[in-house]
């Protein structure tokens, strides 16, 4: 599904590589934690999957497609197969919960009926069926993250990229979010999640990829935080 082959990434003006000689294969349906201290290269790893930029050297594949060969509108088409969840939720403050989620389908020009049906179903899945008309500022942190997750999965993505999704949440709320992500994973979505949250990683016993200063220093199934 996702393959990193001898990937190097060096940002302009930086002597040190953000990622160095990374070789990883993530299979369809896997749930992978990406851990490591700040500056280890976790975000760069996710950005490469999202094709925010290309690697300096090496190749990133998604479904056997070399991402550096994907250009123009195909980038957008490829991104529609991925969902993204951010630490800071990134919801549109001027739109209701319903509109925030429906927006991700609107840009794909889905008709109103389909949008309505899907949004209500996904709101049920994240446990927010009564919050459709509320605005993000009326919600708690955990609820906002649920809205962000609902938006990320509304189009039925193959891959869900999560960048510190529990970073701003208390442990109990984090647990709820993690259970939700685990359910989504069980429905067949591959999840790659960058995190600092040791208790979460410890509790869920998934595959853990450990990065430090751009190097891959550990990759264990069911592993714990280093």
């Amino acid at each position, binding site marked *: 599904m996702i393959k990193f082959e001898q990937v190097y990434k060096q940002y302009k003006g930086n002597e040190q590589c953000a990622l160095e000689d990374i070789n990883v294969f993530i299979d369809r349906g896997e749930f992978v934690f990406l851990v490591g201290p700040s500056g280890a290269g976790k975000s760069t790893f996710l950005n490469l999957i999202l*094709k925010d930029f290309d690697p300096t050297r090496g190749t990133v594949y998604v479904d056997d497609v070399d991402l550096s060969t994907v250009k123009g509108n195909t980038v957008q088409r*490829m991104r*529609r197969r991925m969902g993204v969840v951010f630490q800071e939720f990134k919801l549109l403050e001027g739109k209701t919960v319903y509109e925030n989620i429906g*927006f991700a389908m609107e*840009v794909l020009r889905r008709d109103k009926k389909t949008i309505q049906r899907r949004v209500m179903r996904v709101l049920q899945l994240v446990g927010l069926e009564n919050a459709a008309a509320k605005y993000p500022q009326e919600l708690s942190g955990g609820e906002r993250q649920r809205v962000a997750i609902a938006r990320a999965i509304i*189009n039925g993505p193959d891959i869900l990229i999560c960048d510190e999704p529990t970073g701003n949440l208390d442990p109990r709320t984090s647990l709820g979010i993690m259970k939700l992500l685990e359910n989504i994973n069980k429905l067949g979505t591959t999840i790659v999640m960058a995190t600092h949250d040791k208790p979460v990683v410890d509790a869920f016993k998934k595959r853990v990829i450990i990065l430090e200063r751009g190097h891959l220093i550990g990759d264990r199934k069911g592993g714990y935080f280093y």
Partner: protein
Amino acid sequence: MSMILNFFRDAYLNIKRNLLMSMASVISVMAALIIVGVIAIIAMNVTFIVDEVESNLEMKIYMADDQPEASVEEIGSRIQANAHVTELAFVSKDEALDEFASWFGKNEQLLQGYAEQGNPLPSSYVIKVDNAENLDQIYKEFINIEGVEDIVYGQEYVSALLKFNKMINTVSIVVVLILSIISLFTIYNTIKLTVFARRGDIDIMKYVGAGKLYIKMPFILEGSMLGVLGALVAVLLLRNIYAMVLGSLKLGTVMPLSASLAPFGLVIGPISYWFLLYGFIIGAVGSLISVSKFLRT
């Protein structure tokens, strides 16, 4: 169709949501255009006045005193044949004397002696030309013709006027151009800040796989709306200011000074048209460049 309406709705909502930044953009477009506008109005007026003076310039071609009538008429038809001559009037010796006499009014009797001793004034052709720049050429063409005594048209005055007009035109074009470029950067930077404040929105749209045009369209519409709005306010202010200037010059003067200024429509018409177009283009292009920076991938 509904998608286009959605673009407009989104652009409108974005302006409402980011009222402060939107106002900053409108004000920067307005301020820049008012400065450009004032300079442009002054330059247009100077050009107008100079044009007026130019089109009223006369040239007098004096005939030698002993010319037979046929020869005078022949010179007249040669002048008439010149392509640059727009008006031609013959002033006979008697008419010249009458005109001269009229200057004396009640003291006309002072000239009685002249009438008795023979009229010393020459007959002449008074002509107007299409462009003051051609006066010199006409002078050279006719001065050496037999039967022409002298040609008078205020050479020094005309050449100074032409130089002045050219200078004003060049200076005003340069100033308006420089100010336009400065305002372009100011407006572009303000719009860039507006877009930067909403990079989060752009990120979201990017990651849900929205097409580039879909992301850009509301920003471009928003930018052009703000640009046109700023230009509109500037045009309305300039209209009122110019109307006030014309109005105040009309009051309390026997010969209205406002009559020598460029008419309202001649100045405000093109300014309205160009400024609204400028506002639209700079708003749209400024937004397009800014939003494209966030959409490199």
